[in-house]
Each structure stands twice: as structure tokens, then as C-alpha cells.
């Protein structure tokens, strides 16, 4: 054996002693102990912020979406920006749980469950926006889903917006099922650890009477693999289809074949940054630093760096294509983005997404929480602004100079944005308290000594 450079060694599953029972205790502790004051404070703050969402929604439904800042020419404002932002956040979870699973990246074990939960909650946040953008969501059942109706009118299946309906619902359903499939054995462990009958009942029902039978495991493992195999193209398709909302149109700055890969890379970029943002807090609050180690942060930040480079490449390519295409409107759209009324947003985007992440080339920025934390926060900001630049930056200057305008969000728009963050954080906080935030089963199965030294053969 040649000696391996330690920097190239695979990330260890856990740091320190690998005692399965202790690990189990560590993971289940947040679920089985009474929440601390800090958790209550965080939950209260997130809950209050989250209340803004239903409040603003009720106001919107009562008054109509005229209370949002949207109008001609910017008909897609914060709602669509937020939708793309949230659905993108979810993509990191699927990347970790599906793509890295297929690539046999063992380090994903410690963070997969948490990231998958993020996916599910981010999709929940994302679908609120287009749904309420329809104005009357109770009628939208007919506009979105091909339901038989007495007028004989059906959605247009050639519309990317209709593709979105199918993509979002499939993505949400498959992500939730994938997440739940992974949870079943852990819920069984929670059931068997539970002392209070109520907890026993709840986890007992949720774990579906899981008995860890070898027959069940064979089907389970196959199904898990299939879910990973299905989710991988699914996650690529979802953000591609989101990008079609723009790319299939004729608006300058949108009508680009670059959009699908550009959007997928951006989604994973922002999602991975969000995972880092939240998991750093989670691991210190619940004392899980030996499971989510600095090595994990290091690898995640490498993915952030790679996707940042992809996004930067797309920014450059957009400028190149605008010049190379010879299209006057495209050229105008690009120069208008950089120097027009929304130039400030563009430069925030470039700074946060393309320039600052270059610091991640430095090892200390990938590993030291106080250095990486502001960075990943700014990536989240930058990616939100990227969607803002795409949506508003293109719409406010369309073909007719007479209808040019300047978009300003109203307090309802801001309330919905803040409220969706509150909603998301509330769900994350509840998740950490009621479900195992780390997949104990997977962790145990990957520890040294957990597997027999030879395979069973038909002797």
C-alpha cells in the first residue's frame, strides 16, 4: 500500500469513538429531552415570523393580488422570485440524498436526513407562491390540474407553467416519500426507545410496525436505490422546467438555452449554502459535532465553490451570447442589467455568487465556522438576488419603451418573503425536535465492525 495523502482520504463517518449505542443516544437526545430555553426562543421567533405568512396571505386573498407590487410591465415580482429561490434551496437535499448516494459518497450519511427535510420544507414554501399568485387558489384547481369540468376546458400541456405543476407536485411527493422511506427504521428505533405511551403510539404508527426483517430490508434497500435513481434525473428536471418558465418565453434575457444547466447549478449552489447555514447551528445546538464534522463542512463548501464557478461561468456566457448573437434586444438586456436601474441588484448578485465564494479556495474558509458562516449567508442573499435580477431585471424593460417601469415590492411582498423564512425555520425546528435529524440506521450500518467481514455465500 502506498501511503495516501491524508487530504485525499475519505471523510470519516464519525469523529472519535464509533460506539453505535452512544451515537444513537446522541442523535435521539434532542427528541427525548425537554427543549432548552434557546430552542423555545428560536421557535417563538420563527413562529412569529412565520405567522406573517398566513396574515399576508389572508390580506392578499381579501383584497386581491393588487396589494402586491406587481403590475405592467413587471407581472412576476417577489412571488416568482421566492418560488424559484425556495425550490432551488430544496435541490441540495436531493443532491445529497440521491446523487451522492449513487456516487457512494459515504460522508453524506451524517447530513442527508437534515438536507432531505430541508428539501421537503423548501418545496412546501415554494408552492405557496405560484398557488397564491393565481389570485383565487380555490379555483386554481382547474387551472393547474386537468380536472373534468362542465366547461370542457383543460390546461395547456405545452405551457412550461403547466409542466411546473407536474414537476413540483412530483418533486414534492417523491422527496417526501424518499425522506419517509429513510425515516422508517429510525422511527422504529424511536418507537422502541420511547417511554411515554403517546410517543410510543406516534412513532409506532409512523414506523409502520417496522421489524427490521431481512426480507423487508432486501426490498427496502432496492427501493431506496430506485428512489435515488429516480430522484437524480428528477432534481435535474425540476429546475430545468423552472428555467423553461423563462427560457421558453421571448423576453430578452430569458430566451436562452443556457438556462436549464445554469438554473440547476444555481439551485445546488444556493441549497448547499443553506444546508451549511442551518447544519452549523444544528450541530452545535444539539452537540453533534462528532457526527457533522468540520470535514463535512469542508466537502460541502467544495461543492459550493464548484457550483459557484458554474454560476459565474453562466454569468460570463450570458454576456458573451448577448454579444455573439448580434441581437440588439439581448445586448440591451445585458447592459441594462449591469448599468440600468437594477444595477445595484446585479452587482450584489455578482459579488455574493461569483466573487466572494472564491475565498473558499482557502482551507480555513471551508472549515472555520466564523469564517464560512458570513460567506454562506451571503451566498443565500446572492442567489435570491440572482432570481430577482432574472425576473425583474428582464421584465421592467420589455420591447415597448412606453411600458417600461420600475418594480417596487409592497409591505405584503416583504411580509410574504419574511413569512416564508419563518415558516421554513419553524418546520425545521419542529423537525429537529420530533424526528431524528440524522439517520442513525445508516450511521450504524457504516461504522467499522457493523458489517460481517465476508459476504454470505450459498455454500
Amino acid at each position: 500500500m502506498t501511503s495516501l495523502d491524508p487530504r485525499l482520504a475519505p471523510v470519516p463517518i464519525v469523529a472519535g469513538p464509533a460506539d453505535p449505542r452512544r451515537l444513537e443516544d446522541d442523535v435521539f437526545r434532542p427528541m427525548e429531552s425537554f427543549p432548552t430555553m434557546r430552542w423555545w426562543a428560536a421557535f417563538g421567533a420563527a413562529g412569529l415570523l412565520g405567522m406573517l405568512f398566513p396574515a399576508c396571505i389572508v390580506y392578499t386573498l381579501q383584497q386581491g393580488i393588487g396589494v402586491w407590487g406587481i403590475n405592467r410591465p413587471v407581472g412576476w415580482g417577489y412571488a416568482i422570485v421566492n418560488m424559484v429561490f425556495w425550490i432551488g434551496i430544496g435541490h441540495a437535499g436531493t443532491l445529497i440524498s440521491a446523487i451522492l448516494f449513487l456516487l457512494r459518497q459515504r460522508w453524506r450519511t451524517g447530513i442527508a436526513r437534515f438536507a432531505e427535510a430541508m428539501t421537503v420544507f423548501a418545496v412546501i414554501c415554494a408552492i405557496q407562491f405560484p398557488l397564491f399568485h393565481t389570485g383565487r387558489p380555490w379555483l386554481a384547481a382547474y387551472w393547474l390540474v386537468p380536472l373534468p369540468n362542465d366547461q370542457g376546458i383543460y390546461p395547456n400541456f405545452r405551457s412550461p407553467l403547466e409542466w411546473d405543476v407536474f414537476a413540483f407536485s412530483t418533486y414534492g411527493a417523491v422527496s417526501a416519500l424518499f425522506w419517509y422511506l429513510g425515516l422508517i427504521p429510525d422511527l422504529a428505533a424511536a418507537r422502541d426507545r420511547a417511554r411515554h405511551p403517546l410517543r410510543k403510539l406516534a412513532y409506532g404508527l409512523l414506523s409502520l410496525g417496522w421489524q427490521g426483517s431481512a426480507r423487508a430490508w432486501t426490498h427496502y434497500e432496492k427501493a431506496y436505490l430506485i428512489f435515488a435513481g429516480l430522484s437524480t434525473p428528477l432534481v435535474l428536471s425540476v429546475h430545468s422546467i423552472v428555467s423553461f418558465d423563462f427560457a421558453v418565453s421571448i423576453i430578452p434575457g430569458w430566451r436562452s438555452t443556457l438556462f436549464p444547466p445554469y438554473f440547476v447549478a444555481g439551485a445546488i449552489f444556493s441549497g448547499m449554502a443553506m444546508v451549511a447555514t442551518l447544519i452549523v447551528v444544528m450541530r452545535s445546538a444539539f452537540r453533534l459535532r462528532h457526527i457533522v464534522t468540520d470535514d463535512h463542512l469542508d466537502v460541502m463548501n467544495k461543492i459550493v465553490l464548484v457550483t459557484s464557478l458554474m454560476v459565474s461561468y453562466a454569468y460570463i456566457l450570458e454576456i458573451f451570447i448577448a454579444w455573439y448573437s448580434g441581437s440588439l434586444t439581448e445586448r440591451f438586456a445585458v447592459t441594462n442589467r449591469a448599468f440600468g436601474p437594477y444595477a445595484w441588484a446585479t452587482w450584489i448578485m455578482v459579488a455574493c455568487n461569483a466573487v466572494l465564494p472564491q475565498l473558499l479556495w482557502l482551507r480555513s474558509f471551508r472549515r472555520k465556522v466564523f469564517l464560512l458562516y458570513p460567506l454562506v449567508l451571503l451566498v443565500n442573499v446572492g442567489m435570491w438576488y440572482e432570481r430577482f435580477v432574472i425576473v425583474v431585471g428582464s421584465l421592467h424593460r420589455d420591447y415597448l419603451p412606453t411600458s417600461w417601469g420600475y418594480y417596487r415590492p409592497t409591505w405584503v411582498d416583504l411580509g410574504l418573503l419574511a413569512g416564508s423564512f419563518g415558516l421554513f425555520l419553524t418546520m425545521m425546528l419542529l423537525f429537529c425536535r420530533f424526528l431524528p435529524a440524522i439517520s442513525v440506521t445508516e450511521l450504524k450500518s457504516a461504522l467499522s465492525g457493523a458489517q460481517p467481514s465476508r459476504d454470505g455465500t450459498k455454500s
Partner: protein
Amino acid sequence: MIDETEQTGAPKPFGWVGLFDDPETLLRAAERVRDAGFRKWDCHTPYPVHGLAGAMGLRPSSVPLIALTAGFVGLAAAVALTAGLSVWAYPIHVGGKSLFSLPAFVPIMFELFVLFAAFAAIGCVFVFGRLGRWRSPLHDSGVMKEVTSNRFAIVLEAGDPVFQKESARALLEAAGCHEIRPLIEGGPGVPMADSTEPHGRFGGLLWRFRPSWSPGLFKAAAGALVASAFVIPLTAVALPFIEFLNDMAAQPKGKAQMTYGRLFDPAGDGWMVDRRAPEGTLSRGGETYPYADAGNTLDVAKAIGGKIANPLPYTMENMKKGRKVFETFCITCHGARGEGDGGVVGPGRFTAPPALDAPQAREYSDGTIFHIATQGTEKMPPYAEMLDSTERWQAVQYVRVLQRAMNPKPGDLDEAKR
């Protein structure tokens, strides 16, 4: 212990459970059990143990095949959905382009492939993995608790043809198992460690009545599924008719096909919308009727008839206009010739009015007929709102024409000849 329970006849033995501490020994034991020819047995592990399926001699899972099939079913469903609706049910013509535009349907086809395959995969885990059984000897005896906290178990079921109490136990012992316990069906083999702990009455009750996997539960679940298959579409159909926040929908304006104002029953024939003007209203350019408050019985009409004279001369023009009025307003009940056989008259509909050419009607003065036309009588509604007095007088003249026409005199023919 199995013997004792058999003798008392209470709980039936389920089998033996052997507990292991490491996967290595489990794997070897599984091979021996497999070679001993057992069919009804299983291993229980906290996590998937590599190679265990081979050691147990399990066939490879059929989940991939089923998921793939379901995926293609989803694909076919997507083609049927998109093409069926876009080509036949609701074709949208855009610049003469093909209605069956397959490339545009690819995203939906892909999504439904994934969706169906995913549901099939998780359904397979549920069905083949025999999930949904909340009660089993393993749960009840507390063995499951040890398994999930990192022990490994082999269960040999008593129902297996090659199962014999002592030899099965000996097999487990020979395979290196040091902890072998009997499992009992339908009750705890060993008392549950914490079932006796006080947890409040409510929590204890809930746990006692946790669902068991029974045909009844299965039927209930299947029933709920089928019911939701009806309830969900019906709800979706009803949704557009439910107003959640009706600020925009409820506006003070009239809508077609809706009743406004109160309903009234003018003559006991049935409720109808009250379109009468409110008391004391006068239409623009309208006229007052001096006997409006006199009443509308026939006697009143006869009494008043003498007091009002017909202001219009009997001319051809007036009679023609009267005919127009009669054939617009009166004809529906009175019929074209005033015989009381109008279109709305009939069994189950409106009662036939008396014939206009009846002898007593012919004796009415013009004023009496005018009063009836103005105020209505018995079942006839008033027409003052719809016809002005000139029109009513003209109608009276046409009624006279009808009466005359329906009662010809012998000399009429001579007049016509001349």
C-alpha cells in the same frame, strides 16, 4: 416454557427467537438455518447487513421490475392525458401547428414516469416488507427493542413444517446463539418492561388500543382509500362553488337566473318572484288611476265600470293596436280568441280564465273590463305596470272585437256579401 403454555391452552407458541450480538455470527447462523430447510423464519437486524439475503437464500427483490413497470404505466398515462386532452377534448390551435406535439409533452411524461415508479417502489416496500403490522410477538415480547438498539435476531416460527421444539432450539445453539427465548402469539412472551409504568390514563389507553393488523383494519383502510377517491374529486368539483372570502364575488348587482326581492303567491297557484313596484311608486311620465284603492273583485269592477267611460274612439287603428297588446300580454292565458285556452293554461299549469265572450262578460261595460285589466281580478294579475291606460283601452276595444266576432249575428253574412 413452550410446553407449559401448550398445556394451559392459553397463548399459542409462535416460535423461538435467538439473539446475537454481532452480524458475523448471525450470518453464519442464518446459513445453517437455511441449510436445515426452514421456510418460515426471518432475521431481524437494526440495519441492512451485507450478504444476509444470500446467507438466507432469499430471492432477489422484485421491486425494480415492478417500479419500472409502474413507471411505464405512468408514461402511458401521461401520453393519454396530454394527447387525449390536447388533441381531442380541448384542442388549442396555434398557427396551424400539430395538435399532437410530443416534444412539449415530454416533461409531463417524464414526471409521471418518476411519480408512478416512486409510488410503486414504496408500495412494494409496504406490501412485500409486510409493514403495517403493529402487533407481533416480536413487538410484544420486547425483542424488537433489543434489535433496534443494535442486536440481531433469528426467529424460527413454530408453523414451519420442519420446526420441532427441541431440534430448532438445538440448531440455534449450535449456530452460536447464547440467548434463546420462546415467543408467544397474541401476548407478551416476557412482560413489557415499561407497560406497567404509570403514564396517565389517556396515554395508557391509547397504547392499549393501538391498531393491530387485522382484516378489519385493512378493510377500513381500503374503504377510506376508495372513499377518498370519490370524496377528493367531488370536493374539487364543489370547490369553485364555495366562497372562501367573498369580498370580490358578493357584489350588490343583479345576476342572470337569480331571484331578487321576496317571493309571493299571487293566487295560490305557486310562488313567483314579486316584481310589483313598491307601494306608491309612480313611473316616470306615468299616470295615476283614481280607483287604485277600490279593490279588484268583480263586483267592484262592475260598480266602477259605470263611472269611467272609454276615452278612445272606436277606430280601426285603435282596434289594431289593441290587437297587438292583446296578442302580447293577454293571449298567454286568454288564448287567441279569448276562449281561455292560452298557452300556459292546462292541467298542472295555470287555471283557465273564463271565456271573454261569455254572456255576462259581453254585458260588462268598457270601464269594467278596463278596471279588470288595470287592477286584475281573482287570479288575474294587474297590468297597470306594464301597459299604460291608452294601451289598456285599446285592448278593451279588441276584446269587444273578439266578443263580436265570436258571436256572429244572422245579418253579418249579408254585410260581408255587400
